[in-house]
């Protein structure tokens, strides 16, 4: 018995030592990174410029538009069944987008450092939560990821390391979430690797999402933010309320094969239906080459034709947005340039 106790004490002591070593490793790594001039202060307020991926990130993708997404049939089935009005069910209104939404959503970004009061080492980076998006905490102190059985959250569990001047973040323990607002999902088995690379006043966040349930290949997205102290990053307290009266237990959805809107998107842009369905092969140049041999673009622009980089724009070709038209009273500056993204009025 005494021998067993001694063994247990020794194992516990060893575990404590390992934990200390991990922490020490993280601190030593940070100290060395600072010495090398590679650790970078990422804290600040970063404006989302929405100069690419604008449709997905601002007004939202069309129903049935899965272009450029390396998803599998399982994901298509989930997205085809999705009805956006599901989001205004009181019990779903306050479900947050998961951390991948930093590069998938329209929001600005606030990053804060948490420092160890004794050593000054960075313990964590905190990416603020904002409209509909969960806070994203990145632990820099060498702590391990929890057990696979630990709870999954919208923010997930994230640890970071410096690789030169790039902060690399690994996130596990995500809840199932929406990648695109037209229902394209990721599962709770997804892992996310992010790289934060700062160049002068720009911060490029690259996200690589790997999901064995819904994605054929790792999904890469990158978004560039510009530091801007005047940018607003407003959290939005969520108070669920009944927006549309429904029978108890009613969940808006489409049964398989019953979504009547899936054909609209490819028809709008003269795309073959297959292209709109996504898949890994559609993301490579050879697919484009084959497609272009038969593709004929529509004669004219029919949606979002006023240009612009703001969150709210006219979605048709009517109104005063062409060269010779007078600008409408509430128009964005010429060219649609906007100082920064502002939160959408409501979750869509």
């Amino acid at each position, binding site marked *: 018995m005494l021998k067993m106790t001694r063994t247990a004490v*020794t194992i516990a*002591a060893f575990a404590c*030592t390992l934990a200390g*070593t991990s922490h*020490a*490793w993280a601190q*030593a790594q940070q*100290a060395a990174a600072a*010495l*090398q*001039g*590679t650790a*970078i202060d990422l804290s600040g307020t970063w404006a989302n*410029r929405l*100069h*690419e*991926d*604008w*449709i997905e990130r601002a007004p939202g993708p069309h129903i049935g538009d899965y*272009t*450029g997404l390396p998803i599998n049939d399982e994901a298509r089935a989930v997205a085809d069944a999705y009805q956006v009005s599901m989001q205004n069910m009181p019990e779903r209104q306050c479900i947050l987008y998961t951390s991948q939404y930093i590069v998938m959503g329209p929001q600005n970004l606030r990053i804060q450092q948490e420092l160890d009061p004794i050593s000054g080492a960075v313990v964590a980076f905190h990416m603020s939560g904002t409209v509909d998006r969960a806070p994203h905490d990145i632990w820099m102190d060498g702590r391990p990821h929890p057990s696979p059985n630990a709870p999954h959250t919208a923010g997930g569990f994230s640890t970071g*390391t410096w*690789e*030169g*001047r*790039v902060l690399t973040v690994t996130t596990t323990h995500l809840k199932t979430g929406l990648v695109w607002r037209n229902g394209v999902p990721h599962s709770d088995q997804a892992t996310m*690797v992010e*790289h934060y*690379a700062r*160049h002068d006043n*720009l911060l*490029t966040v*690259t996200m690589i999402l790997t999901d064995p349930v819904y994605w054929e290949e790792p999904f*890469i997205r*990158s978004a*560039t933010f*510009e530091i801007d102290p005047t940018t607003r990053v407003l959290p939005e307290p969520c108070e669920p309320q009944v927006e549309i009266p429904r029978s108890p237990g009613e969940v808006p959805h489409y049964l398989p094969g019953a979504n009547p809107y899936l054909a609209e998107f490819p028809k709008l*842009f003269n795309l073959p239906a297959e292209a709109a369905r996504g898949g890994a092969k559609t*993301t*490579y*140049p050879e697919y*484009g*080459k084959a*497609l*272009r041999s038969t593709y004929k*673009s*529509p*004669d*004219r*622009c029919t949606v979002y*034709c006023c*240009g612009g*980089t703001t969150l709210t724009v006219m979605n048709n070709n009517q109104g005063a947005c*062409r*060269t010779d038209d007078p600008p409408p009273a509430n128009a964005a*500056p*010429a*060219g*649609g*340039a906007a100082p920064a993204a502002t939160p959408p009025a409501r979750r869509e």
Partner: protein
Amino acid sequence: MQTLGRILRAGATLAAMLAMTALTFSTLAAQGRGAAPAAPAAAAGQARAGGAPGGRGDGPPPTGKAGAPVDLTGNWVSVITEDWRWRMVTPPKGDYASLPINMDAKKAADAWDPAKDEAAGEACKGYGAPGLMRQPTRLRVSWQDDNTMKMEADAGTQTRLFHFGEWKAPGGSPTLQGDTTASWETGARGRGGNQPPPMFGNLKTVTKNLKPGYLRKNGVPYSDKATLTEYWDLLRQPTGEQWLVITTVLEDPTYLARTWITSLNFKKEANGSKWDPSPCVAK
């Protein structure tokens, strides 16, 4: 006596813990004085392209090749997971959403006529540096000489040259790919002695003297006053996969209401077996 024994054993265990921790700290501190403390796998993946020793403090600055903190050479493929409808096919005339352009640019885009471009021998207007990098394409990156990196694209069969060191643009008429100066950004503080080149960093390129072209294939223009700044980051995944992410900043006082900021993603390929040069297409 038993109590004394327990105390001695506990003391010995504590001493062992302290010794291990001290040893760990001293080892890590020693590593911290040397090269960046990256995980070995990550460091191995960021192998230097040059290999010349020293290069900081003593003697002339290293050449672009010798001073490379990362190896960008090889075969890369653009993975079009962003702006697919605007990049994989040519969008309709007048579709310039997400571009911070001004009214002059809209006017020019509304007058786009691809047949006219082809007839005028201008089918490559969408393949100048700002538009080329957004094409679905494969890239082949190599060193033309010690101070010139060559980037070939199979879309439109284009070549860009990145000049390191004291290179001066020859001047003359603007060209499709312009004149590009290049430098490595390492963030390393100046140190004397024979320190090796940093193990991490990114490429920065600045391209000027561009011939007017299209930043979107449907005729959205940039002018000969445009300046293209690009930051090239090599990102290595735990799986061993490598990505090249290029943060791109286009300034154009003629056609942009503000700088246009995007980022592009390329995946490393094992070889050039899928390299497929094709001519420019205006439509």
